[in-house]
């Protein structure tokens, strides 16, 4: 017998089975995260050594079955069945099986064993299983499954060497006897279809068997061969549909039921469950999903998380800002002044600053999300929030991304990855930027301070506070309404189920959380960062050229492309009550919304940013030379704020949406609908306001 030398090994298993932990333990930092072409599914691979051979380990998306019902599951099924265009069929499979949940995990394991690719079962979560009174006879399980079974504890590095040894001892076997059986007539039909598939499509026999099961259990015949072969196959498949009908066999259910029946009979021999009084998970759930305490805990956790991205991340962000300023002053000293220095400082450096400015928020958010996910709390959060979110066609898991978007839509959109259903995920991504992010706050504050009288209402709350709260509510209102609209129109899914596992609670592993944060941060820097940097430099160019010598900064800005664009769009934004100066501010906001404040400062010739009071006065007193009326009225201020709530002015968000949806279609849809929404709502507000002579 030749020694077996696999080059690509796939890691497959159910979601929550400890697959990622095992992947991290085997590959360490030698990981690469990318995307499968054309889909939003993440491709994770890593390297590890088997004796002296470097092996590629492919971490396949978690799935409950090889009959895919989502893009993620389809990737796994396609790769394992050798149907993927982008990935070679793995030569061996490590199938992760959660000991707590043996029966259901064995369902996928049994499907994988049927493929006749050499497989090792890695039995995980044994410590948890022991605590909840579950005992598994691994030797017996191995004998009954016909494949090696290795007990592993990836966090404590237990069983990893054994797993590698088992992989080295694998060898290619042909025509292994299938251990589970279906009723005789089904077996016969299956055999007949399998034969014709092998002939017509040249499928290998395990793939043909799997496809025959798929064809037998699907509603109507669908296949992927050429026309003549399809005709032959179709005839045989459909005649078998009729045959099974005569036997009164439910062909949609029979394969699944037979497989589970076999698993059940197998588990009698290997699985011992001692009824424990009440597991720790249950005790925790009595609090975490309690009618009152459940929400108390939930909102407390959300509060801490929100606080961290909203307030705590300010400190590292300030450090970054100081660092950027420090570098800028160094460059100003060492590089001769001129266009090149200006490009370095105001183009490259401010672009880099704009990118890494988001890092603290992203790290904080994913630190919390990692803990929530790894501890098992995330699915409880979805459990208690689902009813509320489902009213708007969203998923229980949409809540956290939307809440995070109050701080910044970028980490918010990145965190939608936990939503498995593509349609629900897209709806959440599309509306996330409507939640007022922290970058809008400086704009709100400036406008409110200048044009909303600071009076107390009912003696308890000030008018400015009410205005700001209302702006947040306007965002929430449109986000939820539009989510519902999208789910009924462009994101209508045939059947959106909420069938979700509630895994037992575990103590989160720092390593897993750390890897998660690292992965997200790198992803952001590589993918979105490059786009943000590029656009920053373009924006700098547009705000600098054509140059006007010997002029004030305000005149220079007005003379530049951006300034001209401000004038150019004036007729378009005039119905909203905005003049060209606001137009320039809106252009500048593309980098970050709060840039509006500093752009206004430049236009009104305010040199230092801490001189806000004089900016306020200048804005209040600014008079339109054509009409002799004030440019900024309270109505214009309100319109401007409404516009800022609803408009997509953040190119970083566009970059992240592009990255997360893997294409330009959804960012364009997002930009388009938000622009139309912002324009029409602001127009309506201005129209009504003018009508009532506000």
């Amino acid at each position: 017998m030749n020694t077996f030398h696999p080059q690509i090994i796939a890691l497959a298993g159910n979601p929550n089975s400890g697959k990622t932990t095992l992947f991290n333990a085997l590959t360490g930092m030698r990981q690469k995260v990318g995307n499968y072409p054309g889909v939003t599914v993440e491709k994770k691979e890593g390297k590890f050594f088997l004796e002296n051979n470097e092996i590629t380990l492919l971490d396949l998306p978690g799935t409950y079955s090889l009959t895919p019902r989502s893009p993620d599951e389809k990737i796994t099924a396609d790769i394992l069945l050798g149907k993927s265009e982008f990935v070679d069929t793995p030569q061996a499979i490590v199938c992760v099986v959660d000991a707590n949940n043996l029966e259901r995990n064995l369902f996928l394991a049994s499907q994988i064993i049927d493929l006749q690719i050499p497989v090792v079962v890695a039995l995980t979560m044994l410590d948890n299983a022991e605590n909840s009174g579950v005992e598994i006879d691994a030797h017996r399980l191995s004998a009954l499954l016909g494949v090696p079974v290795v007990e592993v504890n990836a966090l404590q590095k237990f069983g990893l060497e054994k797993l590698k040894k088992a992989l080295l001892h694998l060898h290619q076997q042909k025509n292994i006897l299938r251990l589970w059986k279906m009723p005789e007539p089904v077996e016969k039909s299956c055999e007949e279809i399998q034969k014709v598939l092998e002939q017509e499509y040249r499928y290998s026999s395990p793939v043909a068997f799997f496809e025959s099961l798929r064809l037998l259990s699907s509603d109507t015949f669908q296949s992927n061969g050429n026309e003549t072969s399809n005709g032959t196959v179709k005839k045989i498949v459909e005649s078998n549909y009729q045959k099974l009908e005569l036997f009164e066999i439910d062909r949609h259910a029979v394969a699944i039921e037979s497989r589970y029946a076999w698993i059940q009979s197998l588990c009698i021999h290997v699985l011992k469950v001692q009824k424990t009084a009440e597991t720790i998970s249950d005790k925790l759930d009595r609090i975490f999903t309690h009618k009152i305490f459940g929400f108390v805990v939930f909102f407390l956790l959300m509060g801490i998380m929100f606080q961290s991205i909203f307030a705590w991340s300010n400190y590292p962000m300030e450090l970054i800002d100081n660092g950027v300023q420090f570098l800028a002053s160094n460059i100003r000293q060492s590089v001769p002044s001129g266009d090149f220095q200006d490009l370095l400082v105001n183009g490259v450096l401010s672009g880099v600053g704009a990118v890494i400015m988001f890092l603290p928020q992203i790290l904080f958010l994913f630190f919390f999300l990692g803990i929530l996910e790894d501890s098992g709390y995330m699915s409880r959060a979805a459990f208690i929030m689902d009813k509320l979110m489902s009213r708007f066609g969203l998923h229980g898991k949409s809540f956290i991304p939307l809440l995070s978007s109050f701080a910044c839509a970028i980490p918010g959109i990145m965190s939608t990855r936990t939503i498995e259903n593509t349609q629900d995920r897209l709806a959440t991504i599309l509306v996330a930027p409507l939640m007022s992010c922290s970058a809008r706050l400086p704009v709100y504050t400036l406008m409110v301070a200048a044009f909303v009288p600071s009076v107390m209402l009912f003696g308890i709350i000030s008018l400015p506070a009410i205005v700001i709260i209302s702006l947040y509510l306007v965002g929430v209102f449109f986000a939820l309404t539009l989510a519902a609209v999208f789910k009924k129109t462009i994101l209508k899914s045939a059947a959106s189920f909420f069938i979700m596992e509630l895994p037992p609670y575990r103590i989160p592993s720092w390593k897993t959380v750390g890897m998660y944060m690292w992965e997200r941060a790198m992803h952001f820097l590589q993918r979105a960062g490059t786009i943000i940097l590029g656009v920053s430099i373009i924006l700098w160019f547009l705000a600098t050229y054509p140059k006007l010598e010997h002029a004030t900064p305000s005149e220079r800005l007005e003379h530049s492309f951006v300034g001209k664009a401000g004038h150019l769009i004036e007729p378009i934004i005039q119905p909203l009550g905005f003049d060209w100066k606001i137009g320039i501010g809106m252009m500048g906001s593309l980098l970050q919304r709060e840039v509006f404040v500093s752009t206004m400062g430049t236009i009104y010739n305010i040199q230092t940013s801490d001189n806000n009071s004089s900016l306020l006065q200048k804005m209040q007193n600014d008079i339109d030379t054509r009409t002799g009326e004030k440019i900024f009225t309270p109505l214009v201020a309100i319109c401007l704020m409404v516009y800022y709530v609803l408009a997509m002015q953040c190119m970083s968000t566009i970059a992240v949406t592009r990255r997360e949806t893997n294409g330009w279609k959804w960012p364009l849809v997002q930009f388009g609908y938000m622009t139309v929404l912002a324009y029409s709502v602001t127009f309506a507000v201005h129209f009504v306001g003018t009508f009532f002579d506000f």
Partner: protein
Amino acid sequence: MTEVSLNNLLVGEIGIVSKFSSNDNSFRQRLMEMGITRGTKISVERFAPLGDPIEISVRGYRLTLRKKEAEHIVVQRKRS
């Protein structure tokens, strides 16, 4: 023994799956793949604080599904 939809069971009650009342085969297959096959014992563990979804215990693990989905699972109610 009475046949009821899963969403009609109370917390702590146990039912044995007898059939599905949905014609959506893809939905039915997903439930079966998750272990909800005919003859499987299901117990209702709790309802979410707002009354929906339901948490059930099946084949030794916990699963949550909306009432709308549980409606399609017909069970025989067992005296517990």
